[in-house]
């Protein structure tokens, strides 16, 4: 069932149909939030909030696909968390030296064609990007949103999306090339 048909069904009163949207997008939205926030707990909260807002306002969604709308709400929730985290003085628990190299258990390396080191290096490099670049890179390259959809999500012109994407990708390639992992070594002839 296409997204539009699901939304129409929910609007007609078939509220179970909403679970189709949840099944379809929860992992993508969670991945987006996790890559932007770095915190599994915050990311899960963001996705929960996004779906509750979508459910509550599904009759009011106009001018954008439900997919773009969900990403927009998720992105806005992520920004709220980032602002809150900057303000909040969290109490640090001493982790001492016993932190081990454990990937997020929800990111199964067996699901990826990449090595564990490559996944880790790329994740770290995305995390180092300025937020406005990371957003578009994640939406385009991890979630396969079109320029037009990203434009709807961020409420900015397509030209801005293309510009941010170009700069974000360039920074990402440079960071990975210069990372100490050696996984993305320089080609012999670099510009």
């Amino acid at each position, binding site marked *: 069932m296409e997204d539009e048909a699901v939304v129409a069904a929910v609007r007609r009163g078939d509220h179970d149909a909403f679970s189709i949207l949840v099944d379809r997008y929860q992992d993508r939205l969670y991945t987006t939030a996790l890559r932007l926030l770095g915190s599994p707990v915050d990311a*899960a909260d963001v996705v929960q909030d996004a779906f509750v807002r979508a459910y509550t306002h599904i009759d009011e969604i106009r001018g954008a696909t439900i997919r773009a709308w969900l990403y927009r709400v998720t992105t806005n929730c992520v920004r709220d968390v980032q602002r809150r985290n900057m303000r909040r003085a969290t109490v640090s628990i001493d982790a001492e030296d016993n932190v081990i190299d454990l990937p997020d258990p*929800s990111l199964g390396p067996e699901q990826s064609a990449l090595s564990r080191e490559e996944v880790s290096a*790329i994740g770290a490099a995305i995390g180092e990007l300025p937020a406005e670049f990371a957003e578009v890179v994640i939406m385009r*390259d991890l979630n396969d949103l079109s320029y037009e959809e990203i434009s709807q999500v961020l409420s900015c012109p397509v030209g801005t999306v293309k510009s941010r994407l170009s700069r974000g990708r360039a920074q990402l390639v440079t960071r990975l090339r210069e990372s100490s992992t050696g996984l993305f070594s320089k080609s012999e002839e670099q510009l």
Partner: protein
Amino acid sequence: VSAVHQTERFSDALDRALTSSEQREFDQHISACGECAAAYSQYRETIGKVRSLPMAKMPVPVRIPADLLPRRSWTEGLRAYLRRGRGVPTAIALVAAAGLLVVASRQSTVNNSSGSESALRPAVVSPVSGAGSGAQAQAAGAAPKAADIAASCVATLLPHPVAPPPSYGNVVTVRGSNGIATQITVAAPSSKVHAGDTVPVFASATVSLQSTGARDSTPSAQIAIGPCVETSTPATAKTVDGSALADVSIPASAHAGDKIVVYATVPAGSGNLATLPQLQVMLTLTVQ
């Protein structure tokens, strides 16, 4: 052939977003410029790897607060589910899951008074403090059975790590690094209590993760978990509004010298961490 290097067009070229004339100019330059060809090749390879990053799994089920959902019988819900062609076996599983949700909801009602928001999160449970529980039948100081805890305790995720109040002087912390870096703390204002007291007890656990989605390398993610709080006989414990605090009630009939053991427990596998072992720490209160 354009003499200008084409790096500014790599992104659009990768997405096939160049106009036909731009694409022609780009192709001509790449075929004539070894530097741009090598750089574009590496660019495509790197972005290709970014695109093949694995998708993360949402670790907790999305829940719509019950007060937002229309009221109807479970048979209506089951019919609607079957109408969408998901099959009988899945529907049976759905009914079983619905039963679990009812349990979670009831636990939430008992232990979490934060209103409709409580339906959004796993319920905080003070699992075996009710009348007739197995743990209450145990002798003072005896550790509750792990199986009893696992059967009744749902440790909850906390929004962020928290530390015990500075004024709490009776603090026990256990750290572990057996596979996953963990820390569990239980604390009370004092080790001395009196019959009839209600003693606030802090309990919190953290699990440190080197998340692949993190911005920093050490530690990139910490999951904070509110443990279940239990007591040996004769006291009872309950969590307070889903926080890391529990109230332990010392019975008026307790005698001077009685020792009450408070257990903070995180069951194995909590927080969707399959390799997380059971965490437990105990604190002793002595009746004056």
